[in-house]
């Protein structure tokens, strides 16, 4: 099942995919997908993201894969739905997308062992974890000014039930900018796979339903400009569309 959270006709609804072009709302109405506002499919209390978690991307960024995952928290105000807009700050020189498989937690979990890790996964969605590299500093890197900007983490369109994805560690990821393929990879190139990430994180944090883990991105990040349409896709999970817009000056 593919589940969405949308706004339609002045109210927020849960909905499920109906055919290729429609949604069935929780009240039974069937609505054209073009007529809704897509919201992030989950409302997480905790958002974590992995840095340098693909073998190839780690090479590109000169990182030696270490014994511990590089994980950092993000604020919920950074999320924005499918077909949303993300602002490129005025005057910056390098802002790039990051296509990522996002794991949504289904049950309260602490100290999980990898054999049982998938029991606590509700499903998956697609994240685009934009980074504004002009603001990168070597303090708690990647720092929040790079990674927790308002509406700079598109998420969606769907929460896809974990039962529908038998092997999340073998999914193809792609990004296109204005229709041109710029990034591709496979989740089987992750340094730390989903069970390893969950085992690590829950060794010190209790996660709850709706919490979100962004699992990192493969190589192929390029600068995006105002007006660009950026499509991050994880095949089988969803095709997440975002448009870069101008920021205003204060």
């Amino acid at each position, binding site marked *: 099942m593919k589940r969405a959270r949308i706004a339609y006709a002045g109210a927020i609804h849960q909905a499920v995919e109906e055919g290729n072009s429609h949604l069935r709302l929780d009240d039974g109405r069937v609505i054209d997908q073009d007529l809704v506002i897509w919201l992030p499919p989950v409302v997480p209390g905790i958002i974590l993201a992995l840095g340098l978690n693909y073998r190839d991307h780690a090479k590109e960024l000169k990182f030696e894969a270490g014994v511990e995952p590089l994980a950092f928290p993000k604020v919920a105000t950074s999320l924005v739905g499918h077909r949303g807009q993300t602002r490129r700050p005025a005057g910056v020189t390098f802002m790039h997308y990051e296509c990522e498989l996002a794991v949504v937690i289904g049950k309260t979990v602490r100290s999980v062992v990898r054999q049982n890790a998938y029991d606590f996964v509700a499903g998956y969605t697609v994240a685009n974890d934009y980074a504004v590299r002009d*603001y990168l500093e070597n303090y708690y890197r990647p720092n929040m000014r790079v990674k927790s900007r308002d509406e700079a983490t598109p998420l969606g369109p769907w929460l896809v039930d974990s039962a529908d994805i038998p092997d999340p560690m073998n999914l193809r990821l792609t990004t296109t900018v204005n229709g041109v393929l710029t990034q591709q990879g496979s989740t089987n190139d992750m340094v730390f796979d989903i069970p390893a990430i969950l085992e690590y994180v829950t060794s010190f944090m209790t996660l709850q339903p709706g919490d979100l883990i962004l699992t990192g991105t493969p190589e192929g990040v390029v600068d995006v400009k105002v007006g660009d349409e950026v499509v991050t896709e994880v095949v089988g999970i969803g095709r997440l569309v975002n448009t870069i817009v101008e920021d205003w000056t204060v």
Partner: protein
Amino acid sequence: MDERSRSVIGVALNFRETLVRLSPAFAAPPYKSPPKAPILYLKTPNTWIAPGDSIPCPPGVPRLRMAGTLGVVLSRTACRVTAENAFHHIGGFTVVNDVSIPHESFYRPALRERCFDSFCAISLPLFPPTHQREFEINVLVNNVLRSNARTSSLVRSIPQLIQDVSEFMTLHPRDILLIGEPDASPLCSPGDKVRVEIPGVGAIENRVVQAS
């Protein structure tokens, strides 16, 4: 609104004594240059505990750092506010014990060190806020005063922090901005009773216990 949807945001190296003490290291790798923007971190919802709750000391960690700090509670949405207007967005203050596993490096986000379960004790907030603009923060361990800090030592003042954070990250009502960790915050072991006091705001007391 879901209680877990609020953000509790901390700021590292915001007391001048700490910044001055560590600054010689900041010219060298991995930092290579001094910090420019505020160095932020989150205290995720799994860290939040109330007065009287236990603070778990993880196995293999001998001591935990207890940073008594002031929590600034937002009352109005703050997006790109100026320091001049920042106080209009403050709804109250709270006393916080921002617990961490001591760590020397500020290079990578210290997720385990800062976001371990029950690592952020938050008092009931004081509404409406006091008109105080300067605060004194005391940390007492087993009834003995172990650290005393004043907000006059902040690198970035409360209004400046609200300006610099809200420039890229909107703060919402009930979000809490922690103003920083006083230099030489005490280290505590299981069994210790920790009390953070901020005259004019309140106090919070918790005990450190050995986690299994």
